[in-house]
């Protein structure tokens, strides 16, 4: 540790703190010049000796005992950390479940959105062109709706689907067919149109004889299972019950269409339609 201002042959300056520290703590790593100086300097060697004693005392300090209160706090801390970790895991699991559900539905989002746009557009156009609606009931067979190639010109009315009323009408019509079939064997297949013979009680649907002009509109893939003259909102109407050709003859699920007027054809207004499930 030579002062650069001093001539080379002058007595070197005392060691600085780092020099003393190095000589006391790790003399093997100390600069030879520092050790050489310390060997010939009473002040510096005294400081080194003093520091060596200090280092020995510091190294001798015992490890303090951890107080009981601190141990209790540590245990509680670990317990709390586990609770937090459990809550975090639960949160991640929930997030992952939501993400998976979203992923599962994601491929359907584009088609569903497209369908929504199409339905919206059709409804909008319908309302612009006279208030008729293309809304169809769930389970409608292909071609039952307006614009169908199979039933061209059939325009369902936006009367709202009254499933209970349709079911009631269809059940009555099918029972009539069943009764007729019982009386005249060989009518199975359903294409023979029964002609209701009475108007029954005042509370029952009012039947009138099917007009001679009655010819139920056909639907591809469906067979006419029954038909009946009905009154709907005070107007004459014709109910036609269709059975899907893929269903067995004993099926209880039919598709009922209520056409306006006593002599419906492919251009008749559809007052109501929908799947009906009857109990035998």
């Amino acid at each position, binding site marked *: 540790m030579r002062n650069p201002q001093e001539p080379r042959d002058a007595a070197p300056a005392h060691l600085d703190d780092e020099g003393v520290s190095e000589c006391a703590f790790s003399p093997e790593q100390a600069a030879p010049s520092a050790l050489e100086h310390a060997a010939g300097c009473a002040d510096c060697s*005294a400081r080194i000796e003093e520091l060596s004693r200090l280092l020995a*005392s510091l190294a*001798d300090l015992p490890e303090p005992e951890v107080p009981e209160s601190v141990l209790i706090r*540590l245990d509680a801390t670990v317990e709390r*950390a586990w609770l937090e970790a459990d809550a975090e895991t639960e949160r991640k699991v929930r997030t992952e479940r939501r993400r998976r559900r979203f992923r599962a539905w994601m491929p359907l989002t584009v088609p569903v959105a497209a369908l929504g746009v199409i339905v919206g557009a059709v409804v909008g156009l319908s309302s612009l062109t006279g208030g008729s609606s293309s809304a169809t009931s769930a389970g409608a067979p292909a071609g039952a709706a307006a614009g169908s190639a199979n039933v061209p010109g059939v325009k369902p009315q936006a009367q709202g689907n009254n499933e209970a009323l349709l079911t009631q009408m269809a059940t009555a019509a099918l029972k009539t067919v069943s009764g007729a079939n019982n009386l005249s064997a060989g009518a199975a297949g359903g294409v023979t149109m029964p002609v209701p013979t009475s108007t029954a009680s005042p509370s029952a649907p009012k039947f009138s004889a099917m007009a001679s002009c009655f010819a139920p509109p056909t639907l591809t893939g469906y067979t006419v299972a029954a038909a009946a003259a009905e009154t709907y909102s005070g107007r004459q109407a014709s109910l036609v019950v269709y059975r899907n050709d893929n269903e067995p003859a004993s099926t209880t699920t039919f598709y009922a269409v209520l056409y306006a007027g006593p002599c419906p054809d492919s251009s008749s207004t559809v007052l109501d339609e929908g799947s009906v499930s009857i109990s035998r």
Partner: protein
Amino acid sequence: MAPDEGADLDCLRRHLAGDREAFGELLARHRGRMWAVALRTTGNPEDAADALQDAALSAFRAAAGFRRDSAVGTWLYRITVNASLDRLRRAAARPTVHYPDPESPVWREATADPTDMAEQRELRLVLEQALTRLPADQRAAVVLVDVQGLPVEEAARVLQVPSGTVKSRCARGRAKLAGILREAEIIRAAGNPKPDRDVPIQIDSKAAPPTGSSAAPENKERGAR
């Protein structure tokens, strides 16, 4: 790999696998040293207890990110020192900073050693108190290297500073400590002409002989061991 290190790693592995006891086992292996570092770095048992709690929580949360670029013990030391220095910073922001009072029962309990001989307590208490008078960075370096016995390189990893910085902080801290003890005549350097007897160091007068000619040679002898 040292056997202790293997056991530490095993505790960490089991902890990460969901073993509810493993982290407690790891803490039990290291809490004594962690407490010593926290106590001596913060300088008072209250902040040390808070720092140790912070450190345990930090280690628990960071266990998954432990990379084996250092020993588990070094990693825990680093977390403890950081938590202690953080507590010190918060304490510095408080209106009053309290240093340990050797008369305080809390301090006595915190530094109690059942094997302590009465004549050793004076030196220990003065040393402990002198440590608290060092600037925090020097104190942490001296505690790790000179008290806990970490190699300079490992202390550098704990403090995340270069080894040269650790040496420099230790050198300055040791010089200050020597000055404080010289003033208290605890360690009397040869050729120290005028020890200052008026320094505000509190000595436990009930448990230890008063600082004076009778105590100095004994301490000198202890220090020379």
